[in-house]
Every structure is written in structure tokens, then in C-alpha cells.
């Protein structure tokens, strides 16, 4: 279930240059799951989808970690505690809970990191098998929530393209190493399409489920307009089937996506 409501901002923190984390509060947010999102009213013609970066079901609180890329996110970044956000939430199909007995690899790039942190926050405590979070970005500033992971007991592996934090390169190197070690691992990933395509390719041989959280420009956010589609399987002679990120996703299993069309 989801609702349309106004939620007060209870905290707002500049977490990195051009990145802000807002925490909002509302009873409906108790139902939020990792990988789901809020569709937020901003001054533009359309709402803006933002994933939950953390979820506190007891207090009905959820975090929204926003990177400023345009007008809507700039407006969000200027909001202060005490102001209210008009949201539709929680929306979408989140991550399927991991098998606590199976190795677990979380792969996040840039603003793809927050939904993975919410997954770790939710399921990490019960997890019994090895786990690892691989966080990537172009440069150190883009690595988000590394401290949160650490605080929640998981020291993340970092990779930056310019080498300014962690290993130089993309998340692919560490991912390949982990998969070599734990071929039965389950994978959850979120980040730019290029990164997800690589994750999908590298994890093709893995035996565990591979879940990828996708982005697409959205209209309604609730499944009515068919704006937010991504190419999905099966691919027929005329092309792929299109599925909705807002309700069929944002989280898809890798087999569901038609990567050659994305």
C-alpha cells in the first residue's frame, strides 16, 4: 500500500558537495522497503522519484539522499527541517530480501548507493554469510554513505575512476573478485545504466539472484501512464517488451531486462 501525503522534514544534512540527505516522517513510511521510492512534488510539471536511503519503521521515518542535477533536485536541496514535502510513497517493487545464509554483494554507484544502504540497514543485522559493499564513483566526493555502512558494521570497498578514494577503476574489479570467491553470491546493484550493464554481464555466471534497481524518467510514478519503461524480456522480432520502472521495478532481476536494448 502507498499513500499521498505531506510529510515534515525532520532533518536535512549536506552530506557531500551538491548532495543533501533529507529525512521525512509519516506513519505510511513505516511500510517502506529498501529499493522503493517516493515521488516528490517539486515546482516542475512532474514529481521527482527518489529512493529511500534509510528507513526507520518504528518512527515512520525515511531518508532521501538527493544529488543536485537540475531544477527539481536543486529545489529539494534548499529545503529545511520544519518544511513539508508532498509525496506519493512508498512506491514500487523493492529488493527481494536476501537469503541470510548466502554470500551477499551490494554494488552501488553514486546516487545508486543510498537504496543499497537501506537494504543493508534492514537485512544486514540478520545476515550470517559473508557480505560486502562495493561503492563506486568518478571521484571521492561521489562516494556516498561509506560512513553509514561502516557504522552499520560493514567496511565498504571503494573504487573511484580517478583513484581519489579506494581503488582506481570501477566497481567491476572488486565485483569480479568477490564473485570468483563466492560464485553462489546474491547481488544487489544500483547506479548508472552503464554500471548496471557491466554488473549484469559480470554476474551472468553467478548462481545467486542478481537484482538491479533501475532509473527512468517518470510521469505518474504509480503505473498508470507507461512513461517509465525499460526494455525487458522477452525480446520479440520487433523488439523488447517494455516494463514499468515505477511498478514492475525499480528493482528487476537481471533476467528480466533486455540489456542489448538499454
Amino acid at each position, binding site marked *: *500500500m*502507498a*499513500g*499521498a501525503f505531506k510529510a515534515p522534514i525532520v532533518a536535512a544534512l549536506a552530506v557531500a558537495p551538491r548532495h543533501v540527505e533529507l529525512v521525512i516522517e509519516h506513519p505510511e513510511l513505516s511500510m517502506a522497503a529498501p529499493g522503493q521510492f517516493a515521488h516528490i*512534488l517539486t515546482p*516542475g*510539471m*512532474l*514529481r521527482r522519484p527518489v529512493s529511500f536511503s534509510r528507513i526507520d519503521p518504528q518512527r515512520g521515518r525515511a531518508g532521501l539522499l538527493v544529488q543536485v542535477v537540475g531544477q527539481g533536485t536543486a529545489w529539494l536541496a534548499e529545503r529545511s527541517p520544519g518544511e513539508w514535502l508532498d509525496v*506519493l510513497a512508498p512506491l514500487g517493487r523493492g529488493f527481494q530480501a536476501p537469503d541470510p545464509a548466502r554470500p551477499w554483494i551490494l554494488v552501488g554507484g553514486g546516487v545508486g548507493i543510498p537504496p543499497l544502504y537501506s537494504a543493508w540497514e534492514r537485512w544486514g543485522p540478520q545476515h550470517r554469510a559473508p557480505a560486502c559493499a562495493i561503492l563506486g564513483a568518478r571521484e571521492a566526493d561521489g562516494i556516498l554513505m561509506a560512513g553509514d555502512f561502516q557504522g552499520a558494521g560493514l567496511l565498504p570497498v571503494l573504487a573511484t575512476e580517478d583513484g581519489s578514494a579506494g581503488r582506481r577503476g570501477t566497481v567491476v574489479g572488486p565485483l569480479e573478485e568477490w564473485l570468483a570467491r563466492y560464485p553462489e553470491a546474491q547481488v544487489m546493484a544500483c547506479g548508472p545504466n552503464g554500471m548496471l550493464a557491466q554488473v549484469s554481464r559480470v554476474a551472468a555466471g553467478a548462481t545467486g539472484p542478481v537484482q538491479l534497481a533501475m532509473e*527512468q*524518467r*517518470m*510521469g*505518474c*510514478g*504509480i*503505473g*498508470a*501512464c*507507461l*512513461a*517509465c*519503461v*525499460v*526494455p525487458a524480456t522477452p525480446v*520479440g522480432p*520487433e*523488439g*523488447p*517488451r*517494455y516494463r514499468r520502472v515505477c*511498478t514492475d521495478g525499480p528493482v528487476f532481476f537481471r533476467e528480466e531486462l533486455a540489456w542489448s*536494448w538499454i
Partner: protein
Amino acid sequence: MDLSVRLPRGLTLKNPIIAASGTFGFGPEYARFVQVNRLGGISVKGISPEPWRGNPPPRVWETPSGLLNSIGLQNPGLTTFLEEDAPFLRTLDTVVIANIIGHTVEEYRTVAAGLQNEPAIHAFEVNISCPNIKAGGITFGHDPDAAYHVMRAVRSVTDKPVMVKVSPNMADPWTVAEAVVEGGADMISAINTVIGLAIDLKRRRPALGGTTGGLSGPAIKPIALRVVWEIAQRVSVPVIGMGGIQSAEDVLEFLMAGARAVMVGTITFQFPQRMEEIIDRLPLVLAHYGFRSLEEAVGAAWTSRTADGAEGGE
């Protein structure tokens, strides 16, 4: 104030606010946010005989006070609609309009025939104004003759009320309206989206996967009002107006231009509850501008001089 609207063939709306096709799915999607039964009606997403996959993404792009879309009429097709979507629609206590699409006259007939006995459907909206659909190189919606034949084909298989949805992308949209009335249309709905394009500067290509798209939202309200104004004064059947409606005042503009009811689309994405708010405020707004009934407002801005499409503009 009584907001009900009587339309041809016994069709009655509780109120003049109908959810516009393509912006309200097949009904259940918004049911979590909207009391669907409070609406005057809903027009479902366009239905074709077979499934259509639609256009590649991106499918939406924001423009000043407007929205460009190129969904490409993705839909599951008639059979799946009847199996999966019609059951929910049957539970509704409001008017359900089937928006129908096809590549050929025959396809329109097939969909109408296939829905003629479906109790969930109370009326048809024949969408001939989608630039995706071609007949002899000209879209049905821009060719009065082709439009006439589509309407005749639909009329031949159904006695349900039928409205035809016309395109704003022409100087004389009334020619199509007149032709479909001649072909048996009970109502006209106007307007569909305006053809538009945006460029994604970063990607150096058209912003939409489908290249061009349809412009909707407040930006097109004056375009829509002009089409409604001109058609409503020329045809004897009711006109259902739409295009950029955001408020009860906007609804009143459409009524005064000659519409009997309206459809509301794009604004629902921002404000799912806006249609209900409009229904709540409409009596107050009508009264504020001195109208004692909804009917009184219909065409209230018509002057003695007939619109001849020749005024204004530079």
C-alpha cells in the same frame, strides 16, 4: 448544485470531470489515491486489437508548463484487456469509456465489436488523433473522409454512445468533427495532444525515444479552448473538452467555450487528488461567476457572431 450531465444514448455523468485517456491507466492504478467513483467517469488507455509495444524510452520530457510524451500507445490488446482489466472496471460505479485505437478502419471495428458486449464499458472514445496511426499517408485524424469511415465502421458494430477524439494539429479541426458527426458520432472529445519536439542538449538528440511527441498540460489550454470553441458552435452534438485543465476555473473556461463536460489528464501526475478537488470546488466557482446551474455555463461565452476561424493571431 446538481453537477450531473446528460449525454446522448442515455449516458449520464455524476459530474463533468472525467479522467483523460492514457493518464489514468485502466482504473486500478490511481485507486489508492483517488476515489474513482467520485469522478464523472474515466477514459481508459487506448486499446488496440493486438498488444502494442509502444515507443522506446525516454517517453516523457518536461517543457514550460507542458509535458511531451511519446508512449506510443503501448497497451496489452483487446483480449488481455477483457481478461485482466475489465473485471476491475465492472466493479466501478462511474462511467467507463473505452479509448480505442487501430492501424486500419478494420482494427477500430474489431475493438469496438469486441467491447460491445462488455458491461464494464459504457461508451467509446475513438482516438483518431494519434499521429502514430496512418491511412494512406495521412493520419485518420487529419483527414475528414478517413475519420468518417472509421466512425461508420465503429457505428456499424455498437449502439453504445461513441465520441470521436479530434486532433488540434490543423487549422480547421471542425472539418473532422463535422465528418464524424455525419458518420454517426454522438459526441466529440477535444483535444488530443499537440505535436511537439524537444532536444536533449547533452545527448545531442531528440529528448524522446519516439523523436516527436504529444504536448499536454497547461501550455496547451488556449489551443484546446480554441478547438472546443470552434467545434461546439458548429456541431449539434455535445463536446467533451480537455487540454491543460488544472482548476475549477479552467473547467469553467471550457464550459463557457461550449464543452458539456471535460477530461483531466496531465495535472493528475502532479496532483492525484486534483480531480476530486475540482469536483468539490466547481459549484462554488460556478456560483461565484453568477451561474445557477452547470447548463447555464455551457456556451455562455458565445457571442452572436459565429466563430469563423478567421480572427486573431499574427
